[in-house]
């Protein structure tokens, strides 16, 4: 028996010893790590790619943004400001942009020239790059021909001299500069990427065993060249890639050749922590410095915690959560029915009881954080009597109200279910209509919304760029009904005209006025039932200063400073 107990004792000793070892090899406590100047910003999934041309998700965008720059960027208030271009001129007809580049260098020390701009943009348009963002150059003259292989170069991108590049558009576009802030419009270092294309660097650095060349068309070499961004960054931003351990972390270090303010932290780490609970726990354990977003389940606890509540900051997203009506299906073909539904649901209750104050009651379609925009709309009041009256009028006018109306939401999120049940109860109580709830798997759900199959459904929308066009034209213009964006199949010629006129308007103030008019029409038509404008919430450790995030993501981390804890 003694021997058995000694085995157990030995194991316990080994465990303790192991624990001790780890603490010492780790370089000390989290406090010391923080002092060493490492900023740790948790990400909920690994970046699918760090090649700017292929970035489509927010995580990859957040990481690449630290290493790359475009010609222009957003400031804190979402205004477009100079970045790699120190200035730009726009021709009176708005179709010719002349960008003047600043004296910037890539992280390698090579100067950035107009040729790099042309090469970077053409690279995105080259089908071999497999970019999903070619459309950001849709208005650029010659872009389609180049992608289709009909031209050797994009004729609309002209290198005037080393520091000047002209971009000719086929038509005026008020959102062209917004699109130039996308990751796909970042300027990349041709030398680095081509070194992998030539496959020498790739052969050295990838661990894929090269097959004996049986198939001449084999894609392995292409794949290696496509993966250069796993090993190196090729940008001009304040940081450069030191290491990317897939599914573990992305480590960036300062780029000393950056033209602007150099990084104030020694290392910037993005640890991948997929589970919400664990991410929160790691933040509280002091293992990460910035947590975005605060998981929904933890929001109330964090808000009521005396310490954590001082570390919260709010981000007013350009995002909306809404219930869509299929305007071409009964009973929602009738405007009064749609209005009645809007008035029959107490949405403030949804904000208070279901979202627990995380989000703000939606007063229209365009969130109030939209820069330079003043909305003319207000939320439909909760008025069951008026709602009932409107429904009766609609029925008199011939509206067909089926005994059961399908209301669909996607599976896997309890909030969607709770909201659906709340609305079901209110519609039944206030209008006497039975809503039949259907919870559908996401892929099928999207497809059926595109097909206009659900009379009522829930959806959300997060802006791609801070302009009303991204809400009104994309989601509600009749030409976009169906898969392109408009699950509501909303159609009103007056609305369409305003939104299309706004696309051509060069005076920004007038343009915003047109959108405000259009939004008012859509709200009067009650094309949707807007629920909330979404906010997200960030936790930042008190010793971290200079962190700022707006609706388009975080600012560059070069201004972030870590002080003693």
């Amino acid at each position, binding site marked *: *028996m003694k*021997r*058995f107990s000694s*085995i*157990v004792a030995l*194991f316990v000793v080994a*465990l303790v010893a*192991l*624990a001790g*070892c*780890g*603490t010492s*090899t*780790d370089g000390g406590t989290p406090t010391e790590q923080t002092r060493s100047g490492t900023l740790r910003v948790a990400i909920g999934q*690994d970046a*699918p*790619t760090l090649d700017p041309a292929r970035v*489509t998700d927010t995580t990859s965008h957040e990481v690449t943004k630290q290493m790359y720059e475009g010609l222009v960027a957003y400031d804190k208030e979402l205004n477009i400001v100079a970045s790699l271009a120190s200035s730009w001129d726009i021709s009176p007809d708005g179709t010719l942009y002349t960008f003047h580049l600043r004296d910037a260098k890539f992280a390698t020390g090579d100067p950035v020239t107009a040729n790099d701009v042309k090469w970077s943009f053409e690279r995105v348009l080259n*089908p071999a790059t*497999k970019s*999903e963002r*070619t*459309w950001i150059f849709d208005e650029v003259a010659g872009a389609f021909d180049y992608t289709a292989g009909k031209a050797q170069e994009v004729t609309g991108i002209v290198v005037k001299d080393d520091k000047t590049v002209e971009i000719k558009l086929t038509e005026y576009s008020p959102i062209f500069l917004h699109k130039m802030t996308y990751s796909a419009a970042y300027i990349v270092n041709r030398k680095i990427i081509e070194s992998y294309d030539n496959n020498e660097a790739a052969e050295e650095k*990838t*661990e*894929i065993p090269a*097959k004996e060349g049986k198939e001449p068309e084999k*894609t*392995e070499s292409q*794949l290696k060249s*496509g*993966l250069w961004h*796993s090993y190196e960054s090729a940008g001009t931003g304040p940081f450069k890639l030191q290491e990317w*351990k*897939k*599914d*573990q*972390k992305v480590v960036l270090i300062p780029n000393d050749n950056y033209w602007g303010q150099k990084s104030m932290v020694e290392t910037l780490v993005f*640890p*991948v*922590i*997929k*589970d919400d*609970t*664990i991410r929160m*726990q*790691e933040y*509280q*354990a002091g*293992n990460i410095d910035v947590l975005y977003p605060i998981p929904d389940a933890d929001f109330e606890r964090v808000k009521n915690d005396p310490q954590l509540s001082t570390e919260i900051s709010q981000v007013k997203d350009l995002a909306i959560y809404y219930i869509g009506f299929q305007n071409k299906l009964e009973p929602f073909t009738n405007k009064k029915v749609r209005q009645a539904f809007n008035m029959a649901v107490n949405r403030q209750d949804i904000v208070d009881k279901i979202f627990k104050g995380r989000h703000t009651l939606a007063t229209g379609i365009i969130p109030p954080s939209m820069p330079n925009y003043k909305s003319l709309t207000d939320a439909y009041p909760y008025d069951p009597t008026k709602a009932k009256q409107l429904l009766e009028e609609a029925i008199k006018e011939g509206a067909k109200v089926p005994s059961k109306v399908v209301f669909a939401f996607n599976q896997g999120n309890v909030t969607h279910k709770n909201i659906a049940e709340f609305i079901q109860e209110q519609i039944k109580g206030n209008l006497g209509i039975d809503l039949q709830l259907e919870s559908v*798997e*996401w*892929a*099928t759900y*999207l*497809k059926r919304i595109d097909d206009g199959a659900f009379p009522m459904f829930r959806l959300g929308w997060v802006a791609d760029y801070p302009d009303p066009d991204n809400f009104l034209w*994309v989601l509600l213009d009749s030409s976009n009904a169906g*898969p*392109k*964006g408009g699950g509501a199949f909303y159609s009103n010629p007056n609305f369409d005209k305003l939104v299309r006129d706004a696309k051509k308007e060069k005076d920004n103030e007038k343009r915003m006025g047109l959108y405000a008019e259009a939004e008012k029409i859509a709200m009067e038509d009650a094309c949707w039932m807007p629920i909330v404008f979404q906010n997200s919430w960030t936790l930042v450790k008190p010793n971290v200063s200079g962190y700022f995030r707006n609706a388009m993501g975080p600012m560059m981390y070069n201004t972030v400073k870590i002080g003693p804890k």
Partner: protein
Amino acid sequence: MIQYALKRILYLIPVFIGVTFFTFLIFLVVPGDPVRLALGQHPNPELQQKIEHELGMDLPWYIRYFRYIGKAVQGDLGTSIRTGEPVTKIILDRFPATLTLTVAAMVFAIIVGLPAGIFSATKQYSWIDNTFMVMALVGISMPVFVLGLILLLIFVSFLHIVPGTGYGDGQLIYMLLPAITLGTIPMAIISRMTRSSLLEVMGSDYIRTARAKGIKEKSVILKHAFKNAFIPVVTVIGNNFASLMAGAIITERVFNWPGIGSATISAIEQRDLPVVMGLVFFIAVIFVIVNLIVDISYIFIDPRIKLE
């Protein structure tokens, strides 16, 4: 023996065909278009078509299946829709983490489970036996994520003994909690199995004879009884090892461990079809091979087992 091994290896072929066929079938009937999902809410139709064509999704399913198998046997499992990485590379990158975690978990399970089982059997119905068996019951019953979170709370948040989750830079300390979490269920099974198997053997005639000959109790247990009692335990160890190798999905998720399980979950969440297919195929291969090794190992442990 070689004949037996070869025969077993040949049996693997229909197993692999079955596994790949059914995985393929599942993705055929599951609603939703994986390419469309990978491309987001409003995808570019041309790009979608292009990717579908590259993946051969415009071909009849049986041609796609045979094409997939043909490439798979050459080690080409396709490329990820999301990241463009070869699936083989994804697997090779993640597998070492899973392997080390599995080995650590099994070492924990055996080092704790075996002595606990033997101890309980020799002191049947004593308070120590009862304590061990209650602990084993708790170990088997407790969901992995609950145990994982409790350990994290105690060792990371309160005691600060373990720095946090993740792989660290390979330091052993990061492996401690996931290994204990993952190893707890096998540990409990091993201790219970060892106990019952040993108790059964202890009642047999040859043990009585051994005792009658005056052999010391410790020798009776370790040299005589344990040898026979060990056979069912090996089966348990083998089976558990195989399933742990297939990727401890929940443990890897809770501890942020960059292994096969974690990669599988991410790929499913992102509907990255080639990656999911490749991972399932790989998991099946590992599972079958480990089971084969366990089966063959019986020959060495128990000569009575005939290989037919």
